[in-house]
C-alpha cells in the first residue's frame, strides 16, 4: 500500500468517525452525507485495491528489474573474466606457437644437419673404403699408412658419434615438439570450451537484456498506470477532504442549532496540539523506527515516497498501547493496513494504529494512556512492524516530534 492511499484512508476514517461520533445530534442530517461517504469509500477502496495491486506489480517489476540488472551485471562481470581468461589463453597459445615454431625450426635444422652428417659419413666411408681397396698411402711408408688408417677409423667413429648425437638431439626435439603440440591442442580445446562458455554467456546476457527491456517497458506501463491511479486517488482525497469539511460545517451548524435551543451556548471545539493533551503521550510499544515520516527516498526502487506516519519494528506479538487517553473511534480492516484502530483524542487529534493482529478494545470504548489496544502479528523472523500515524486538524504530523521513539 502506498503512502497516498494511507493518507486517503486516514482522511476517510476521520470523516467517518466525525460523522459517527462527534455529531450524534446531527445524525439525521449527516446520514445522507454518510451514505455518500460510504459510496465514496467503496469506490475509494476499490481504487485503492487497484492502486495497491498496481503498486505491488510495479514493486515486483522493480524487483525483477533489479534482479535482472544484477544478473546482467553478474554476467557482465563473468564475461569480463571470461574475456580476460580468453585473452590469457590466447597469449599462452601465442607463446606456445612461438615455442612450437622455434622447436620446429630446430628440428628442421637438426634434420638437415643429420642428413648432412649422414651424407658426410657415407662419403667418408666411401673414401675410406676406396682407400682401403686401393691401399691408399705410400706403400714404402707402411707405418704412416697404418697411422692414417687408424686416423680414418677415428674420423669415422667421430662422424658416427656426430650422427648419433644429432639423432639423439633430433629425437629429443621431436619429443619436445610433440609435447608442445599436445599442449597447444589442449590449450586450443580449452580456449574453444571457454569461447563456447563466453558465447553462452553472451547469449544469456542478450536474453537477459531483452528481458530487462521488457521489464523496463512493463515498469513504465505500470508507473503510468500508477500515476493515473494516484491522480484519481488525489482527486478522491480532495473529495473526502471536502466531505470532511462539510461534516465539520454541519457539526458546527448542529452545535449552533443546539445552542439556539438551549440557554447555554457550547463553544466550538478548537483544534489542539498533541503536546497539550492531558496526561501527555507515550510510545505505543518499545521498538525502533524503521520508516521515517515525510519524503523518503527508497534506494531499492529508486523512488521518493511521502510517508504520513512511521513504521516501528518490534518483536512479534508485542502489545500495542494507546499513546494517550481518548475514545476508540474506529476498529476495522483497511486494505493495505490490515487491522486498523483509530483513537480520537479530541480537539481534532487522532492516533492511527495499523497492521495489528487483534484488537483488545472495542469501538466507542474509552481508553487511557498506555491502555493495551491491540497486539502485533507473529512473524517467522520474530519481528513485526506497527504503523503509527498522528493527525492534528486533518494533517498528519511526525510522531517522533511528539513521542519519544527509538530511531
Amino acid at each position, binding site marked *: 500500500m502506498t503512502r497516498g492511499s494511507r493518507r486517503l484512508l486516514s482522511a476517510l476514517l476521520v470523516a467517518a468517525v466525525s460523522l459517527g461520533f462527534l455529531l450524534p445530534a446531527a445524525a439525521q442530517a449527516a446520514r445522507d452525507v454518510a451514505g455518500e461517504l460510504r459510496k465514496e469509500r467503496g469506490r475509494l477502496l476499490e481504487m485503492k485495491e487497484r492502486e495497491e495491486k498496481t503498486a505491488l506489480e510495479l514493486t515486483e517489476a522493480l524487483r525483477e528489474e533489479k534482479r535482472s540488472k544484477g544478473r546482467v551485471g553478474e554476467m557482465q562481470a563473468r564475461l569480463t573474466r571470461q574475456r580476460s581468461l580468453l585473452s590469457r589463453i590466447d597469449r599462452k597459445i601465442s607463446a606456445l606457437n612461438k615455442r612450437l615454431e622455434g622447436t620446429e625450426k630446430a628440428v628442421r635444422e637438426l634434420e638437415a644437419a643429420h642428413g648432412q652428417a649422414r651424407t658426410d659419413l657415407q662419403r667418408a666411408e666411401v673414401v675410406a673404403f676406396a682407400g682401403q681397396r686401393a691401399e691408399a698411402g705410400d706403400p714404402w711408408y*707402411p707405418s704412416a699408412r697404418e697411422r*692414417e688408417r687408424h686416423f*680414418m677409423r677415428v674420423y669415422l667413429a667421430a*662422424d658416427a658419434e656426430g650422427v648419433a648425437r644429432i639423432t639423439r638431439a633430433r629425437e629429443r626435439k621431436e619429443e619436445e615438439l610433440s609435447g608442445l603440440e599436445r599442449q597447444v591442442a589442449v590449450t586450443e580445446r580449452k580456449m574453444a570450451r571457454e569461447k563456447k562458455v563466453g558465447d553462452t554467456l553472451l547469449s544469456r546476457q542478450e536474453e537477459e537484456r531483452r528481458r530487462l527491456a521488457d521489464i523496463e517497458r512493463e515498469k513504465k506501463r505500470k508507473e503510468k498506470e500508477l500515476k493515473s491511479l494516484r491522480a484519481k486517488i488525489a482527486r478522491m482525497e480532495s473529495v473526502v477532504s471536502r466531505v470532511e469539511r462539510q461534516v465539520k460545517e454541519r457539526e458546527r451548524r448542529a452545535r449552533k442549532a443546539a445552542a439556539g435551543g438551549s440557554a447555554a451556548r457550547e463553544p466550538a471545539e478548537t483544534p489542539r496540539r498533541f503536546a497539550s493533551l492531558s496526561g501527555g503521550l507515550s510510545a505505543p510499544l518499545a521498538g525502533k523506527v524503521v520508516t521515517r515520516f515525510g519524503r523518503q527516498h527508497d534506494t531499492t526502487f529508486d523512488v521518493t515516497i511521502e510517508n504520513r506516519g512511521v513504521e516501528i519494528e518490534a518483536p512479534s506479538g508485542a502489545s500495542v498501547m494507546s499513546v494517550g487517553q481518548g475514545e476508540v473511534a474506529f476498529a476495522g480492516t483497511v486494505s493495505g493496513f490490515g487491522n486498523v484502530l483509530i483513537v480520537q483524542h479530541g480537539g481534532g487529534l487522532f492516533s492511527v494504529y495499523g497492521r495489528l493482529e487483534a484488537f483488545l478494545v472495542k469501538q466507542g470504548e474509552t481508553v487511557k494512556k498506555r491502555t493495551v489496544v491491540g497486539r502485533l502479528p507473529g512473524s517467522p523472523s520474530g519481528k513485526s512492524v506497527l504503523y503509527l500515524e498522528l493527525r492534528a486538524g486533518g494533517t498528519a504530523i511526525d510522531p517522533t516530534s511528539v513521542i519519544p521513539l527509538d530511531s
Partner: protein
Amino acid sequence: MSGQPSLWWIDWRLSRAPLVRETIGRFLFLCLLGFALLSLLLSGGASRFLADRYAITAVLRAGVPAAEAEGLARKVAALPPVRSAAYRDPEAAWKEFLRAYPGLDPLRDAGGNPMPGYIEVRMRPDRLTGADVAFVGSALRSVSHVEQVLAGEEWLPRQLRAGRLASGACWGIFGAFLAGFFVVGRLQERARAVALAGDFAFLAERGVPSGRLAFFRAAGAAVSGFLLAATGTAAGGGALLLSLRTFPSLEGVIGPPSDLLLPRTVVAVALFACGAALLSAAASLLGWRAARSGRK
C-alpha cells in the same frame, strides 16, 4: 845373393804396358766395389731403408697436455733402441690425415678436429728388430697417457724378413763381384806369367828360385792390391759422398755422409783393403802355378 837383381815389381820392369792397363782396370773395379762396400756398410743392407720408413705411433688420449706429451716423447727418445721420438699435436695429425684423404676436408667444417695427438717413435737402423720393437711398444703401452700403440705387428716381421733377405742379396752380390775380381786377377796373373815365362826361365837358369820369384810377384800384387783397394774405396767414398750431397733422398736408403768417417767404417775399409791385398796375392800365386803347370 847380394849381386842378384831385386825381384820387387819384376812384372812392372818386364811388362809395363799390360800391367798399367790391368792396374787401371783393377782400380776402377775396386772403386766400384769400394762404393758398394761403403753403401752396404752405411745402409746396413736394407736396415736403414726399413728403419727410415718404419715408425711406432703412440696414439695419445684426448686431453693430454702438449707439455706432458713432449716430456713423454723426450723420455721415449732416451730409450736405447730409439733413434728419435717426436710429439705431433692434434692439429698436425689432422693435417696429416687430410693430406692422405684430401676429399674429406670440406666434410668436417662444423665437426671440428677429431684427431688425437701422437708420438712418432723411430728406431735405430741397427736396432730395428722384433725384440726391440716389442720392448719399445710395451714401454709405451705402460704409459697412462697412451691410448694405443701402432707398431705394425702384422706386417713388420714380414718386412724384417724381406730386409734380411735383401741385405743378404746385396752382400752376396758384393761377394760375387769380389770373387769376380779374384778370378779376373788370377787370369791376368796367369796370362802375364805365361807371357813372361821366357824371362822367368832365364832367371831360373841364373839361379833365381822360382818360389822366390813367385813370392815377390805375389807380394807385389798384394801391395798393389791393398793400395788399389784403399784408394779405390776412398774414391768410391768420394763418389758416394758426392752422390749423397747431390741426391739427399739417398740418405734415407744409404745413410748420412757423416757415417763415412765413423771408426767402424774406416776399420771396415781397412779390412776390405787387406782382403783385396790377400785376394791379389792369391790370384798372383794361383796364376803363376797355372802358368807353370800349363793349365788355364
